[in-house]
């Protein structure tokens, strides 16, 4: 708690930037004249082709009115069926001539408009910001107010299976780019009144909605508070993805390690929220952020909990091993072959020596070179157009792998080392960035000073890791500080019926998540 307070203090002490978002026409009230309003709108929006202003007379009568919407953002069928029809061909046309101005507007709102979400707005800027996002504004002559009707209907991707974090067993839905869809997906999993969605708008030009999702009573209030504060600090042009938010609010911006988690899966996000974390759903991004984020979360997947215990515990250990291999293996190989040959078993040393026979480069150059080549292939694999995918695998496997060895440019062990580091990194994709840089560091350290260098760098990395915090929670917990109770979901995944409590330091305000003694078995009293 002390550390958390310290953290907040530190943030408070940093120089405050002006939170005010300056925008054109801010605070401009509406006129009670239709023409003036139209003029004002045109001034702000210009001659954009997709801005539609449709003039008409209300209820076949004399009262002039117009509606304003953006083509493409608003649902045209909805506008025609539920706004235009109810205002133009109304049965109660006799009523309309007797009222005008604001009175007519109220009448429309209260009695005729057959739409779910309607609000009265007096401010031009507010009207425009809603209209830009797909709503429809109704202006009536003589009224200094406008009705904003929710009519969003823009094209968007449907709910699909996420490309990352795929599972064999578990739900297949993934988040989409649309905030509302995403909150729906969350709400559908967490059907409790405690689920809160708080929206903060960030970005001068993009006006991106950032939604804080958390469980009231489970999540620690201080985390939500801190998060809100950090979000309000952001004063930038554009938030194009949740990655932008991440970089503006993370605890350790200079660190290799991410202190904010991302997920594409609603079930994962729900799981994190249930543990007492906060999810940040950002408009336009299918990647949802979760805070606080601990080191070990990269080694957990949703499938750990949906599949059986023994195998999944084994897989957990395997993931830690994979991380170790991907970070250390090239360094270890260099240290062993250039400094500590006495540590290799004799027959292995002879094979390694025979593979190095005739290789023109020092081991360090060999390993670094192959590492760079792999990064080329990986990057090409991501960026290239799908149809040329074949080419990359041919170049990667045949030309670089096989031909390089045959030509005697690299030894086969180096190919094996590179391939192993390559395959193991994809086991823990959330650590890909950190691991790649760390691997390079360890390779160089081993090249300079052998095991001694590896050990030194390990110390530096460990010291850094235990000093990190994510929203006040020590990054390496439950390992450091050691929380014995949470170890059952660390290297192994204990059966669900033993995981009675939320993670110690995150969910400590409401620690118990299930009743004890849930182990199934004969003679158990039925619970109702």
């Amino acid at each position, binding site marked *: 708690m002390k550390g958390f307070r310290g953290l907040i203090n530190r943030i408070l002490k940093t120089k405050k930037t002006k939170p005010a978002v300056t925008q054109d026409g801010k605070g401009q009230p509406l006129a009670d004249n239709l023409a003036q309003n139209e003029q004002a709108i045109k001034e702000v929006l210009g001659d954009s082709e997709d801005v539609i202003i449709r003039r008409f007379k209300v209820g076949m009568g004399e009262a002039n009115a117009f509606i304003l919407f953006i083509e493409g953002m608003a649902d045209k069928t909805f506008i025609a069926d539920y706004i235009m029809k109810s205002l133009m061909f109304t049965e109660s046309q006799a009523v309309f001539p007797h009222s005008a101005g604001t009175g007519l507007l109220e009448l429309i709102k209260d009695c005729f408009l057959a739409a779910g979400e309607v609000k009265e707005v007096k401010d031009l800027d507010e009207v425009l910001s809603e209209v830009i996002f797909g709503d429809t504004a109704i202006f009536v002559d003589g009224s200094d107010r406008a009705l904003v009707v929710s009519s969003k209907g823009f094209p968007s991707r449907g709910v699909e299976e996420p490309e990352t974090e795929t599972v064999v067993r578990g739900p297949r839905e993934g988040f989409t780019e649309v905030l509302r869809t995403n909150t729906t997906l969350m709400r559908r999993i967490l059907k409790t009144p405690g689920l809160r969605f708080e929206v903060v708008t960030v970005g001068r030009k993009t006006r991106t909605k950032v939604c804080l999702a958390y469980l009231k009573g489970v999540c620690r209030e201080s985390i939500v508070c801190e998060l809100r504060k950090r979000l309000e600090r952001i004063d930038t042009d554009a938030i194009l993805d949740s990655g932008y938010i991440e970089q503006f609010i993370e605890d350790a911006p200079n660190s290799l390690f991410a202190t904010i988690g991302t997920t594409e899966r609603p079930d994962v996000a729900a799981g994190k929220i249930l543990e007492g974390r906060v999810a940040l759903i950002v408009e336009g991004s299918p990647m949802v952020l979760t805070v606080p984020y601990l080191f070990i979360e990269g080694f957990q997947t949703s499938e750990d909990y949906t599949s059986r215990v023994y195998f999944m515990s084994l897989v957990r250990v395997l993931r830690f091993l994979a991380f170790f291999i991907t970070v250390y293996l090239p360094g270890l190989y260099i240290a062993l*072959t*250039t*400094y500590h*040959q*006495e540590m290799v078993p*004799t027959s292995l*040393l*002879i*094979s*390694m*020596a*025979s*593979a*190095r*026979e*005739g*290789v023109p480069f*020092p*081991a360090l150059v060999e390993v670094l070179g192959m590492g760079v080549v792999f990064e080329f292939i990986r990057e090409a694999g991501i960026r290239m157009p799908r149809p040329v995918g074949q080419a990359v695998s041919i170049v990667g496997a045949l030309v670089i792998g096989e031909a390089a*060895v*045959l030509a005697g440019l690299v030894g*086969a062990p180096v190919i094996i080392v590179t391939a192993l580091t390559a395959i193991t990194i994809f086991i823990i994709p959330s650590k890909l960035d950190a691991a790649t840089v760390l691997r390079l560091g360890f390779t160089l*350290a081993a090249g*300079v*000073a*052998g095991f*001694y*260098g590896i050990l*030194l760098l390990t110390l*530096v990395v460990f010291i850094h890791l235990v000093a990190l915090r994510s929203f006040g929670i020590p990054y390496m917990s439950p390992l450091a500080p050691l929380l014995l109770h949470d170890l059952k979901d660390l290297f192994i995944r204990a059966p669900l019926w033993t995981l009675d409590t939320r993670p110690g330091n995150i969910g400590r305000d409401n620690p118990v998540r299930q009743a004890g003694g849930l182990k199934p078995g004969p003679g158990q009293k039925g619970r109702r």
Partner: protein
Amino acid sequence: MFYLKKAVVMVLVAVIVLTGGCGNKRELNELAIVLGTAVDLTQDDQIEVTVQIVKPGEISSGAQGGGGGGEPVVIISSRGRTVFDAIRNFTTVSSKKLFFSHNQVVIFGEDLMKGGVQQVIDIFERDHEFRTEVPLFAARGRAAEILEVPGSEEKISAIEIKKELDTVRHPGWADKVTFHEFVRKYDGRIVVPVVPQIRRVEVNGRTHTKISGMAVIKGGRLAGWLDETETRGLLWVQGRIRGGIIPVKAGGSGAEASMEVKKAKAKIIPETGAGLPVFRVQTEVESNLGEAEPFQLTEQTIEAMKREQADIIKKEVATALKKAREELKADIFGFGETLHRAEPRQWEELKTDWDEYFQDVEVRISVKSELRNFGDKNRPTIPR
């Protein structure tokens, strides 16, 4: 201020990294990996070191296709006044730096052992590249000639010699002695060290290395050789037998049978009182019936076989004891050591002339012989 502090820290880290490193960076292809070392004494009293160096390119199998053609090892000799001197002189004949950490065997030549090994053993302990768990051999004749024998089952003969030792120590025709064990005994001056004996033999027209028997190195010099039976006698007393076959007469009849030793233990118990101590050697052996000509399996025949097994062991021990006492005058069994442990004061009195006393002390051998298992068969196969 903050940046100054940071800079200081970085300089310190750089100093640690750059100055603390071993600094002995060696690429694999700059190393000559030594797998066998032989030390001889030349006619003109120089030390001759012969090493067996692996040529990795010839060993490799698989896709590269280079292997198989040439000799997998190179044998080079070099001379000098000391072992280290000789090793340094290798630079004149080898393009690579000799790397001894993977040395598999150390072989001492007969002439060297006769002249005394004192002058050569130090570097094997002192230099960090040499491992002290490497097995030591005593060659009949020149040690270099042993290394020159090409491997038959293994490409590298030094590795073959090491593996051969592991198989031969099983029946007890020789025992494995690491450099460390040798030096410990050598230094303690209580037990006289023995070293497995190795020599060249012709088998089916091919030269092989044969390991059998031991060399006794007393006071730093070769005192004599133990043959196979004597070696086994020694190992029965030390409880270091791990297997082997004892041929007996089946059930007291004329039929031959093989007892396969499964387990053997031994204890030397010194009994002190007035006068010289008496040593009781208690050996326990458990065997299986490995093979037998047809005979009737009864209580009596089993007992008879057990007895014969015990007699054979006793005889082997007696042979070894006789050799050690009368010919070598060396306590290779470690009787002195057990006395030293049990009765340090009496040992203090006896230790200076222990070699003399050793010849006179009484040694009582008792063998507890067991026959456990008769294999997959319980009645003799008899032709009609």
